[in-house]
Protein backbone atom coordinates (compact mmCIF):
# COMPACT_ATOMS: atom_id res chain seq x y z
CA UNK A 1 0.00 0.00 0.00
CA UNK A 2 1.37 3.39 -0.94
CA UNK A 3 0.76 6.12 1.62
CA UNK A 4 1.96 8.85 -0.78
CA UNK A 5 2.23 8.84 -4.55
CA UNK A 6 3.04 11.42 -7.20
CA UNK A 7 3.27 14.21 -4.67
CA UNK A 8 5.41 17.12 -5.70
CA UNK A 9 5.46 20.66 -4.36
CA UNK A 10 7.78 23.29 -3.04
CA UNK A 11 7.50 25.24 0.19
CA UNK A 12 9.11 28.66 0.38
CA UNK A 13 10.99 30.12 3.29
CA UNK A 14 8.76 31.49 6.07
CA UNK A 15 5.60 30.13 4.46
CA UNK A 16 2.74 29.02 6.67
CA UNK A 17 1.43 25.82 5.09
CA UNK A 18 -1.36 23.56 6.25
CA UNK A 19 -1.55 20.04 4.85
CA UNK A 20 -5.02 18.76 5.15
CA UNK A 21 -7.06 15.73 4.13
CA UNK A 22 -9.11 12.90 5.53
CA UNK A 23 -7.67 10.18 7.71
CA UNK A 24 -5.34 7.93 5.71
CA UNK A 25 -4.65 10.52 3.03
CA UNK A 26 -0.92 10.49 3.75
CA UNK A 27 -0.60 13.83 5.57
CA UNK A 28 1.56 12.61 8.45
CA UNK A 29 3.65 10.40 6.15
CA UNK A 30 4.36 13.45 4.01
CA UNK A 31 5.62 15.29 7.07
CA UNK A 32 7.84 12.40 8.16
CA UNK A 33 9.34 12.19 4.69
CA UNK A 34 9.96 15.93 4.73
CA UNK A 35 12.33 15.61 7.68
CA UNK A 36 13.85 12.19 7.09
CA UNK A 37 11.98 10.39 9.84
CA UNK A 38 10.85 8.01 7.14
CA UNK A 39 12.31 7.19 3.76
CA UNK A 40 10.57 7.39 0.40
CA UNK A 41 10.81 4.36 -1.88
CA UNK A 42 11.05 6.67 -4.89
CA UNK A 43 11.41 10.39 -5.35
CA UNK A 44 13.56 13.06 -3.77
CA UNK A 45 13.12 15.34 -0.80
CA UNK A 46 15.19 18.51 -0.91
CA UNK A 47 15.90 20.84 1.96
CA UNK A 48 17.22 24.29 1.08
CA UNK A 49 17.89 23.01 -2.42
CA UNK A 50 19.93 20.01 -1.33
CA UNK A 51 18.84 16.39 -1.16
CA UNK A 52 20.28 14.75 1.98
CA UNK A 53 21.96 11.53 0.93
CA UNK A 54 22.11 9.66 4.21
CA UNK A 55 20.29 9.20 7.52
CA UNK A 56 23.21 11.01 9.17
CA UNK A 57 22.55 14.12 7.06
CA UNK A 58 18.88 14.05 7.96
CA UNK A 59 19.82 13.66 11.63
CA UNK A 60 21.99 16.74 11.38
CA UNK A 61 19.15 18.68 9.75
CA UNK A 62 16.67 17.61 12.42
CA UNK A 63 19.18 18.66 15.02
CA UNK A 64 19.84 22.14 13.66
CA UNK A 65 17.27 23.16 11.05
CA UNK A 66 14.06 21.28 11.64
CA UNK A 67 11.89 21.23 14.74
CA UNK A 68 9.10 18.68 15.00
CA UNK A 69 5.94 18.91 17.08
CA UNK A 70 4.05 15.65 17.52
CA UNK A 71 0.35 15.18 18.11
CA UNK A 72 1.04 13.09 21.19
CA UNK A 73 3.69 15.54 22.44
CA UNK A 74 6.34 12.74 22.65
CA UNK A 75 7.95 14.16 25.76
CA UNK A 76 10.00 12.03 28.15
CA UNK A 77 7.80 11.61 31.19
CA UNK A 78 10.60 11.07 33.68
CA UNK A 79 12.23 14.40 32.87
CA UNK A 80 11.18 17.92 33.78
CA UNK A 81 9.95 20.47 31.25
CA UNK A 82 13.33 22.21 31.06
CA UNK A 83 15.17 18.89 30.71
CA UNK A 84 12.94 17.93 27.80
CA UNK A 85 13.65 21.25 26.09
CA UNK A 86 17.39 20.75 26.63
CA UNK A 87 17.40 17.35 24.90
CA UNK A 88 17.89 18.56 21.30
CA UNK A 89 20.66 20.89 22.47
CA UNK A 90 22.85 18.01 23.62
CA UNK A 91 25.57 17.59 21.08
CA UNK A 92 24.89 21.09 19.74
CA UNK A 93 25.39 23.33 22.77
CA UNK A 94 28.39 22.14 24.71
CA UNK A 95 27.86 23.96 27.97
CA UNK A 96 25.29 22.49 30.35
CA UNK A 97 24.79 25.92 31.85
CA UNK A 98 24.11 27.47 28.45
CA UNK A 99 21.64 24.71 27.57
CA UNK A 100 19.79 25.20 30.82
CA UNK A 101 19.71 28.97 30.32
CA UNK A 102 18.36 28.73 26.77
CA UNK A 103 15.79 26.12 27.70
CA UNK A 104 14.54 28.23 30.58
CA UNK A 105 14.32 31.28 28.30
CA UNK A 106 12.29 29.33 25.73
CA UNK A 107 9.87 28.12 28.35
CA UNK A 108 9.54 31.66 29.63
CA UNK A 109 8.84 32.83 26.07
CA UNK A 110 5.96 30.41 25.72
CA UNK A 111 4.54 31.20 29.13
CA UNK A 112 5.76 28.22 31.11
CA UNK A 113 8.65 29.78 32.98
CA UNK A 114 7.12 28.91 36.34
CA UNK A 115 6.65 25.26 35.33
CA UNK A 116 10.17 24.67 34.08
CA UNK A 117 11.12 22.26 36.84
CA UNK A 118 7.88 20.32 36.88
CA UNK A 119 7.81 16.79 35.56
CA UNK A 120 5.81 16.23 32.40
CA UNK A 121 3.33 14.07 34.28
CA UNK A 122 2.41 17.13 36.36
CA UNK A 123 1.55 19.28 33.31
CA UNK A 124 -1.76 19.63 31.52
CA UNK A 125 -2.11 18.66 27.86
CA UNK A 126 -1.82 22.24 26.75
CA UNK A 127 1.25 22.82 28.89
CA UNK A 128 2.85 19.64 27.61
CA UNK A 129 2.32 20.71 23.99
CA UNK A 130 3.87 24.10 24.82
CA UNK A 131 6.90 22.27 26.15
CA UNK A 132 7.00 20.28 22.91
CA UNK A 133 6.91 23.52 20.91
CA UNK A 134 9.72 24.94 23.05
CA UNK A 135 11.69 21.78 22.40
CA UNK A 136 11.12 22.14 18.69
CA UNK A 137 12.61 25.65 18.92
CA UNK A 138 15.60 24.52 20.98
CA UNK A 139 18.23 24.87 18.24
CA UNK A 140 16.63 27.83 16.45
CA UNK A 141 15.41 25.87 13.46
CA UNK A 142 14.39 27.42 10.17
CA UNK A 143 11.48 25.00 9.78
CA UNK A 144 8.88 23.70 12.18
CA UNK A 145 6.84 20.68 11.20
CA UNK A 146 3.76 20.09 13.34
CA UNK A 147 1.78 16.87 13.05
CA UNK A 148 -1.75 17.55 14.31
CA UNK A 149 -0.37 19.63 17.19
CA UNK A 150 -3.82 20.25 18.62
CA UNK A 151 -5.26 16.81 17.94
CA UNK A 152 -5.31 15.86 21.61
CA UNK A 153 -6.39 19.20 23.02
CA UNK A 154 -9.69 20.90 23.84
CA UNK A 155 -10.88 23.85 21.77
CA UNK A 156 -9.70 26.55 24.15
CA UNK A 157 -6.22 25.07 24.41
CA UNK A 158 -6.19 24.46 20.66
CA UNK A 159 -6.66 28.16 20.02
CA UNK A 160 -3.85 28.98 22.43
CA UNK A 161 -1.45 26.53 20.82
CA UNK A 162 -2.22 27.71 17.30
CA UNK A 163 -1.67 31.30 18.35
CA UNK A 164 1.59 30.31 19.95
CA UNK A 165 2.78 28.52 16.81
CA UNK A 166 1.85 31.50 14.67
CA UNK A 167 3.60 33.92 17.00
CA UNK A 168 6.66 31.72 17.03
CA UNK A 169 6.62 31.64 13.23
CA UNK A 170 6.56 35.43 13.04
CA UNK A 171 8.98 36.10 15.89
CA UNK A 172 11.56 33.51 14.87
CA UNK A 173 10.88 33.80 11.11
CA UNK A 174 10.47 30.09 10.63
CA UNK A 175 8.67 28.14 7.98
CA UNK A 176 5.67 26.42 9.56
CA UNK A 177 4.14 23.30 8.01
CA UNK A 178 1.22 21.94 9.95
CA UNK A 179 -0.75 18.78 9.31
CA UNK A 180 -4.38 18.95 10.33
CA UNK A 181 -7.65 17.25 9.47
CA UNK A 182 -9.55 20.29 10.74
CA UNK A 183 -10.56 22.66 7.92
CA UNK A 184 -11.00 25.60 10.31
CA UNK A 185 -7.47 25.21 11.56
CA UNK A 186 -6.20 24.86 8.00
CA UNK A 187 -7.86 28.17 7.09
CA UNK A 188 -5.45 30.01 9.35
CA UNK A 189 -2.56 29.12 7.05
CA UNK A 190 -1.57 31.18 4.03
CA UNK A 191 -1.37 28.07 1.89
CA UNK A 192 -3.36 24.87 2.14
CA UNK A 193 -2.44 21.66 0.38
CA UNK A 194 -5.23 19.11 0.20
CA UNK A 195 -4.28 15.46 0.08
CA UNK A 196 -6.57 12.64 -0.91
CA UNK A 197 -5.53 9.01 -1.18
CA UNK A 198 -1.88 9.93 -1.13
CA UNK A 199 -2.10 12.53 -3.89
CA UNK A 200 -2.38 16.29 -3.98
CA UNK A 201 -6.04 16.94 -4.66
CA UNK A 202 -5.95 20.69 -4.52
CA UNK A 203 -4.23 23.78 -3.25
CA UNK A 204 -5.26 27.20 -1.99
CA UNK A 205 -3.33 30.31 -1.23
CA UNK A 206 -4.35 33.22 0.93
CA UNK A 207 -2.85 36.54 1.57
CA UNK A 208 -0.93 36.88 4.82
CA UNK A 209 -2.87 39.11 7.25
CA UNK A 210 -1.08 42.39 7.95
Amino acid at each position, binding site marked *: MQAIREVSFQIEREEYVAVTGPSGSGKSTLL*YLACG*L*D*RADTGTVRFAGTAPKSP*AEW*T*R*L*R*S*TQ*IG*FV*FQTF*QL*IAGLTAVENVE*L*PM*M*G*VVASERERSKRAAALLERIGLGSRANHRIADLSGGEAQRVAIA*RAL*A*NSPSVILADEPTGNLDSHTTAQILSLLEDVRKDHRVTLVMVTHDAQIAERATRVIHLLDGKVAGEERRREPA
Partner: protein
Amino acid sequence: MRSILTAAGIGAALASLLALVGFSRGVDRAVVLTMEDRGTDIVAVKKGSVEILTAVLDEGLAGRIRRVPGVVNVMSSIGDVVDLESGEMAYMAGWSEEGGFWSTLAITAGKRPDPGEIDGVVIGQALADALGKKPGDSIELSGQTFRVTGISKQASVIDDRSVMMPLAALQKLLDREGKVSGFHIRIDRPEDSARLGEVRNRLAAEFPELVFVESSEMANHAAITNLLRSMAWASSTIALAMAFVIVLNTLLMAVMERTREIGLLAAIGWKPSRVIAMIVLEGMLMASGGALLGVGAGLPGLKLMMMHPQIGSFLQPEVTPVLVLQSVALVLAVGALGGLYPAWRATRMRPMELLRGE
Protein backbone atom coordinates in the same frame (compact mmCIF):
# COMPACT_ATOMS: atom_id res chain seq x y z
CA MET B 1 14.00 -3.45 40.51
CA ARG B 2 15.37 -5.03 37.38
CA SER B 3 18.44 -2.82 37.48
CA ILE B 4 18.99 -3.64 41.15
CA LEU B 5 18.85 -7.36 40.45
CA THR B 6 21.20 -6.93 37.51
CA ALA B 7 23.62 -5.00 39.69
CA ALA B 8 23.36 -7.76 42.30
CA GLY B 9 24.27 -10.34 39.65
CA ILE B 10 27.24 -8.29 38.58
CA GLY B 11 28.23 -7.84 42.22
CA ALA B 12 28.19 -11.60 42.71
CA ALA B 13 30.44 -12.04 39.68
CA LEU B 14 32.86 -9.45 41.02
CA ALA B 15 32.87 -10.97 44.49
CA SER B 16 33.62 -14.38 42.94
CA LEU B 17 36.47 -12.94 40.94
CA LEU B 18 37.95 -11.22 43.99
CA ALA B 19 37.65 -14.35 46.11
CA LEU B 20 38.96 -16.82 43.56
CA VAL B 21 41.82 -14.74 42.21
CA GLY B 22 42.56 -13.46 45.71
CA PHE B 23 42.89 -17.01 47.01
CA SER B 24 45.07 -18.03 44.10
CA ARG B 25 47.35 -15.06 44.59
CA GLY B 26 47.39 -15.74 48.31
CA VAL B 27 48.75 -19.21 47.68
CA ASP B 28 51.36 -17.83 45.27
CA ARG B 29 52.39 -15.27 47.85
CA ALA B 30 52.61 -17.90 50.58
CA VAL B 31 54.95 -19.98 48.41
CA VAL B 32 57.16 -16.95 47.77
CA LEU B 33 57.23 -16.08 51.47
CA THR B 34 58.21 -19.65 52.32
CA MET B 35 61.18 -19.40 49.99
CA GLU B 36 62.16 -16.03 51.40
CA ASP B 37 61.91 -17.30 54.96
CA ARG B 38 64.29 -20.16 54.22
CA GLY B 39 66.68 -17.92 52.31
CA THR B 40 66.19 -20.28 49.39
CA ASP B 41 67.51 -19.14 46.03
CA ILE B 42 66.91 -22.28 43.99
CA VAL B 43 64.69 -25.30 44.61
CA ALA B 44 65.60 -28.67 43.14
CA VAL B 45 62.74 -31.09 42.45
CA LYS B 46 62.34 -34.26 40.48
CA LYS B 47 62.04 -33.68 36.76
CA GLY B 48 58.64 -34.57 35.37
CA SER B 49 56.90 -34.64 38.74
CA VAL B 50 53.49 -33.05 38.67
CA GLU B 51 53.11 -32.72 42.41
CA ILE B 52 56.28 -31.91 44.34
CA LEU B 53 55.04 -33.40 47.61
CA THR B 54 54.67 -36.88 46.14
CA ALA B 55 57.99 -36.89 44.35
CA VAL B 56 60.83 -38.91 45.86
CA LEU B 57 64.48 -38.04 45.48
CA ASP B 58 67.53 -39.72 46.94
CA GLU B 59 68.59 -37.83 50.06
CA GLY B 60 72.24 -38.40 49.13
CA LEU B 61 71.98 -35.97 46.23
CA ALA B 62 72.31 -33.11 48.75
CA GLY B 63 76.03 -33.76 49.24
CA ARG B 64 76.69 -33.75 45.48
CA ILE B 65 74.68 -30.56 44.98
CA ARG B 66 76.65 -28.84 47.75
CA ARG B 67 79.90 -29.46 45.84
CA VAL B 68 78.77 -27.51 42.76
CA PRO B 69 80.66 -24.18 42.52
CA GLY B 70 78.48 -21.31 43.63
CA VAL B 71 76.34 -23.42 45.99
CA VAL B 72 76.72 -22.30 49.59
CA ASN B 73 74.06 -24.32 51.35
CA VAL B 74 71.61 -27.18 50.76
CA MET B 75 68.60 -28.01 52.92
CA SER B 76 66.79 -31.28 52.25
CA SER B 77 63.08 -31.45 52.89
CA ILE B 78 60.12 -33.74 52.65
CA GLY B 79 56.49 -32.72 52.99
CA ASP B 80 52.91 -33.88 53.15
CA VAL B 81 49.48 -32.56 54.06
CA VAL B 82 47.59 -34.14 56.92
CA ASP B 83 44.07 -33.88 58.36
CA LEU B 84 44.04 -33.09 62.04
CA GLU B 85 41.38 -34.25 64.45
CA SER B 86 40.06 -30.71 64.76
CA GLY B 87 39.15 -30.70 61.08
CA GLU B 88 42.02 -28.40 60.22
CA MET B 89 44.53 -29.39 57.60
CA ALA B 90 48.20 -28.93 58.28
CA TYR B 91 51.32 -29.10 56.17
CA MET B 92 54.01 -31.35 57.65
CA ALA B 93 57.58 -30.51 56.75
CA GLY B 94 60.64 -32.50 57.60
CA TRP B 95 63.95 -30.59 57.47
CA SER B 96 67.52 -31.84 57.44
CA GLU B 97 69.98 -30.90 60.17
CA GLU B 98 72.39 -29.60 57.55
CA GLY B 99 71.65 -26.42 55.70
CA GLY B 100 70.71 -24.11 58.52
CA PHE B 101 66.93 -24.58 58.75
CA TRP B 102 66.90 -25.41 62.44
CA SER B 103 69.53 -22.88 63.41
CA THR B 104 67.63 -20.03 61.75
CA LEU B 105 64.12 -21.07 62.74
CA ALA B 106 62.58 -18.29 64.86
CA ILE B 107 61.19 -20.05 67.93
CA THR B 108 58.76 -17.88 69.90
CA ALA B 109 58.01 -20.42 72.64
CA GLY B 110 59.76 -23.61 73.76
CA LYS B 111 62.62 -24.99 71.67
CA ARG B 112 63.32 -27.01 68.55
CA PRO B 113 63.38 -30.82 68.83
CA ASP B 114 66.80 -32.25 69.55
CA PRO B 115 68.55 -33.82 66.54
CA GLY B 116 67.86 -37.36 67.67
CA GLU B 117 64.35 -36.63 68.90
CA ILE B 118 61.95 -38.31 66.51
CA ASP B 119 58.69 -37.44 68.20
CA GLY B 120 59.30 -33.74 68.77
CA VAL B 121 57.74 -31.11 66.51
CA VAL B 122 57.61 -27.33 66.19
CA ILE B 123 54.26 -25.95 65.07
CA GLY B 124 53.46 -22.61 63.46
CA GLN B 125 51.91 -19.90 65.59
CA ALA B 126 48.62 -19.82 63.65
CA LEU B 127 48.22 -23.59 63.97
CA ALA B 128 49.08 -23.43 67.68
CA ASP B 129 46.41 -20.77 68.18
CA ALA B 130 43.84 -22.75 66.19
CA LEU B 131 44.50 -25.95 68.13
CA GLY B 132 45.17 -24.29 71.46
CA LYS B 133 48.55 -25.99 71.71
CA LYS B 134 51.59 -24.93 73.67
CA PRO B 135 55.05 -26.48 74.22
CA GLY B 136 54.69 -29.76 76.05
CA ASP B 137 51.30 -30.61 74.54
CA SER B 138 50.86 -33.62 72.30
CA ILE B 139 49.53 -33.65 68.74
CA GLU B 140 48.23 -36.57 66.66
CA LEU B 141 49.65 -36.84 63.17
CA SER B 142 48.66 -39.70 60.86
CA GLY B 143 47.77 -41.86 63.82
CA GLN B 144 50.97 -41.18 65.74
CA THR B 145 51.46 -38.99 68.77
CA PHE B 146 54.06 -36.27 68.72
CA ARG B 147 55.12 -33.79 71.36
CA VAL B 148 55.10 -30.05 70.70
CA THR B 149 58.53 -28.85 71.70
CA GLY B 150 58.23 -25.31 70.35
CA ILE B 151 56.15 -22.75 68.48
CA SER B 152 57.42 -20.58 65.64
CA LYS B 153 55.86 -17.47 64.10
CA GLN B 154 56.20 -17.67 60.28
CA ALA B 155 55.60 -15.05 57.63
CA SER B 156 54.03 -17.46 55.16
CA VAL B 157 50.52 -18.68 56.00
CA ILE B 158 51.49 -22.16 54.83
CA ASP B 159 54.42 -22.30 57.24
CA ASP B 160 52.53 -20.59 60.05
CA ARG B 161 50.02 -23.43 59.88
CA SER B 162 52.60 -26.19 59.48
CA VAL B 163 54.19 -28.83 61.64
CA MET B 164 57.98 -28.89 61.38
CA MET B 165 60.04 -31.87 62.45
CA PRO B 166 63.44 -33.43 61.79
CA LEU B 167 63.73 -34.96 58.34
CA ALA B 168 64.28 -38.48 59.66
CA ALA B 169 61.13 -38.29 61.78
CA LEU B 170 58.87 -37.39 58.87
CA GLN B 171 60.60 -39.83 56.52
CA LYS B 172 59.76 -42.58 59.05
CA LEU B 173 56.17 -41.37 59.46
CA LEU B 174 55.66 -41.33 55.69
CA ASP B 175 57.58 -44.56 55.19
CA ARG B 176 60.00 -42.85 52.84
CA GLU B 177 63.32 -43.34 54.59
CA GLY B 178 66.25 -41.93 52.67
CA LYS B 179 63.93 -39.97 50.39
CA VAL B 180 63.16 -36.28 50.13
CA SER B 181 60.71 -34.10 48.14
CA GLY B 182 63.29 -31.52 47.18
CA PHE B 183 66.39 -29.52 48.00
CA HIS B 184 66.49 -25.84 48.99
CA ILE B 185 69.68 -24.34 47.67
CA ARG B 186 71.41 -21.11 48.64
CA ILE B 187 74.07 -19.65 46.34
CA ASP B 188 76.97 -17.27 46.95
CA ARG B 189 75.64 -14.14 45.19
CA PRO B 190 71.86 -14.44 44.84
CA GLU B 191 71.43 -10.70 44.25
CA ASP B 192 73.34 -11.11 40.98
CA SER B 193 70.79 -12.48 38.50
CA ALA B 194 73.52 -13.50 36.04
CA ARG B 195 75.25 -15.50 38.79
CA LEU B 196 71.94 -17.09 39.73
CA GLY B 197 71.40 -18.14 36.15
CA GLU B 198 74.95 -19.43 35.85
CA VAL B 199 74.75 -21.62 38.96
CA ARG B 200 71.32 -22.86 37.96
CA ASN B 201 72.53 -23.87 34.52
CA ARG B 202 75.53 -25.61 36.07
CA LEU B 203 73.27 -27.58 38.40
CA ALA B 204 70.91 -28.50 35.55
CA ALA B 205 73.83 -29.78 33.48
CA GLU B 206 75.18 -31.88 36.36
CA PHE B 207 71.83 -33.27 37.50
CA PRO B 208 69.68 -33.86 34.40
CA GLU B 209 67.20 -35.89 36.43
CA LEU B 210 66.33 -32.77 38.45
CA VAL B 211 64.67 -29.48 37.68
CA PHE B 212 66.14 -26.36 39.28
CA VAL B 213 63.62 -23.58 39.83
CA GLU B 214 64.46 -20.11 41.03
CA SER B 215 62.52 -19.44 44.21
CA SER B 216 60.69 -16.48 42.65
CA GLU B 217 59.30 -18.89 40.03
CA MET B 218 58.35 -21.62 42.46
CA ALA B 219 54.68 -20.66 42.56
CA ASN B 220 54.48 -21.23 38.80
CA HIS B 221 56.10 -24.63 39.10
CA ALA B 222 53.96 -26.28 41.73
CA ALA B 223 51.03 -28.17 40.25
CA ILE B 224 48.68 -27.19 43.04
CA THR B 225 49.28 -23.46 42.61
CA ASN B 226 49.00 -23.69 38.84
CA LEU B 227 45.78 -25.64 39.24
CA LEU B 228 44.40 -23.10 41.71
CA ARG B 229 45.34 -20.22 39.43
CA SER B 230 43.78 -21.85 36.37
CA MET B 231 40.63 -22.72 38.27
CA ALA B 232 40.44 -19.22 39.67
CA TRP B 233 40.63 -17.58 36.29
CA ALA B 234 38.39 -20.15 34.60
CA SER B 235 35.71 -19.74 37.25
CA SER B 236 36.05 -15.98 37.21
CA THR B 237 35.72 -15.93 33.44
CA ILE B 238 32.53 -17.94 33.72
CA ALA B 239 31.23 -15.55 36.37
CA LEU B 240 32.05 -12.54 34.19
CA ALA B 241 30.44 -14.18 31.18
CA MET B 242 27.29 -14.66 33.22
CA ALA B 243 27.43 -11.02 34.30
CA PHE B 244 27.74 -10.02 30.62
CA VAL B 245 24.67 -12.05 29.71
CA ILE B 246 22.74 -10.52 32.61
CA VAL B 247 23.62 -6.98 31.49
CA LEU B 248 22.89 -7.82 27.86
CA ASN B 249 19.49 -9.23 28.75
CA THR B 250 18.57 -6.31 30.98
CA LEU B 251 19.58 -3.69 28.43
CA LEU B 252 17.94 -5.53 25.55
CA MET B 253 14.70 -5.51 27.50
CA ALA B 254 15.19 -1.87 28.48
CA VAL B 255 15.81 -0.86 24.87
CA MET B 256 12.75 -2.79 23.71
CA GLU B 257 10.63 -1.02 26.32
CA ARG B 258 12.06 2.35 25.38
CA THR B 259 11.81 2.16 21.62
CA ARG B 260 9.58 5.22 21.51
CA GLU B 261 12.00 7.20 23.63
CA ILE B 262 14.92 6.17 21.44
CA GLY B 263 12.89 7.01 18.35
CA LEU B 264 12.13 10.43 19.80
CA LEU B 265 15.78 11.12 20.45
CA ALA B 266 16.54 10.24 16.85
CA ALA B 267 13.62 12.41 15.71
CA ILE B 268 14.91 15.47 17.55
CA GLY B 269 18.37 15.08 16.05
CA TRP B 270 20.41 12.83 18.33
CA LYS B 271 23.14 11.08 16.40
CA PRO B 272 23.21 7.28 16.62
CA SER B 273 26.58 7.54 18.37
CA ARG B 274 25.00 9.59 21.14
CA VAL B 275 22.17 7.10 21.57
CA ILE B 276 24.70 4.26 21.68
CA ALA B 277 26.81 6.15 24.22
CA MET B 278 23.71 6.69 26.38
CA ILE B 279 22.85 2.99 26.45
CA VAL B 280 26.45 1.87 26.94
CA LEU B 281 26.73 4.37 29.80
CA GLU B 282 23.62 2.86 31.36
CA GLY B 283 25.30 -0.52 31.19
CA MET B 284 28.39 0.87 32.85
CA LEU B 285 26.32 2.58 35.56
CA MET B 286 24.63 -0.72 36.30
CA ALA B 287 28.02 -2.39 36.39
CA SER B 288 29.42 0.21 38.77
CA GLY B 289 26.48 -0.36 41.09
CA GLY B 290 27.30 -4.04 40.92
CA ALA B 291 30.97 -3.30 41.54
CA LEU B 292 30.11 -1.39 44.71
CA LEU B 293 27.96 -4.28 45.87
CA GLY B 294 30.61 -6.82 44.92
CA VAL B 295 33.40 -5.08 46.78
CA GLY B 296 31.18 -4.09 49.70
CA ALA B 297 29.82 -7.58 50.20
CA GLY B 298 32.65 -9.59 48.70
CA LEU B 299 35.42 -8.54 51.04
CA PRO B 300 33.50 -9.22 54.27
CA GLY B 301 32.23 -12.41 52.64
CA LEU B 302 35.80 -13.53 52.11
CA LYS B 303 36.57 -12.95 55.78
CA LEU B 304 33.58 -15.12 56.67
CA MET B 305 34.79 -17.90 54.38
CA MET B 306 38.21 -17.81 56.02
CA MET B 307 36.62 -18.78 59.31
CA HIS B 308 35.89 -22.24 57.95
CA PRO B 309 38.78 -24.44 59.12
CA GLN B 310 39.08 -26.34 55.85
CA ILE B 311 39.41 -23.12 53.93
CA GLY B 312 41.32 -20.96 56.36
CA SER B 313 43.92 -23.66 57.07
CA PHE B 314 46.02 -22.84 54.03
CA LEU B 315 44.25 -20.21 52.08
CA GLN B 316 44.70 -16.58 52.86
CA PRO B 317 43.41 -14.40 50.07
CA GLU B 318 45.63 -11.67 48.78
CA VAL B 319 43.18 -8.99 47.74
CA THR B 320 45.20 -5.92 46.96
CA PRO B 321 43.86 -2.49 45.92
CA VAL B 322 45.30 -3.21 42.47
CA LEU B 323 43.31 -6.45 42.20
CA VAL B 324 40.16 -4.63 43.30
CA LEU B 325 40.73 -1.90 40.70
CA GLN B 326 41.46 -4.46 37.98
CA SER B 327 38.31 -6.38 38.87
CA VAL B 328 36.18 -3.23 38.89
CA ALA B 329 37.63 -2.24 35.50
CA LEU B 330 36.76 -5.70 34.14
CA VAL B 331 33.23 -5.44 35.43
CA LEU B 332 32.79 -1.95 33.93
CA ALA B 333 34.02 -3.31 30.61
CA VAL B 334 31.44 -6.09 30.89
CA GLY B 335 28.77 -3.46 31.50
CA ALA B 336 29.86 -1.45 28.49
CA LEU B 337 30.04 -4.49 26.22
CA GLY B 338 26.66 -5.68 27.43
CA GLY B 339 25.19 -2.38 26.32
CA LEU B 340 26.80 -2.33 22.88
CA TYR B 341 24.59 -4.82 21.08
CA PRO B 342 21.27 -3.46 22.40
CA ALA B 343 22.47 0.06 21.57
CA TRP B 344 23.50 -0.91 18.07
CA ARG B 345 20.19 -2.64 17.50
CA ALA B 346 18.30 0.43 18.65
CA THR B 347 20.00 2.64 16.12
CA ARG B 348 19.42 0.33 13.18
CA MET B 349 15.71 1.09 13.02
CA ARG B 350 14.13 4.11 11.39
CA PRO B 351 12.94 6.74 13.87
CA MET B 352 9.31 6.34 12.83
CA GLU B 353 9.46 2.58 13.36
CA LEU B 354 10.73 3.26 16.85
CA LEU B 355 8.16 5.98 17.51
CA ARG B 356 5.39 3.65 16.47
CA GLY B 357 6.84 1.10 18.89
CA GLU B 358 7.57 -1.45 16.16
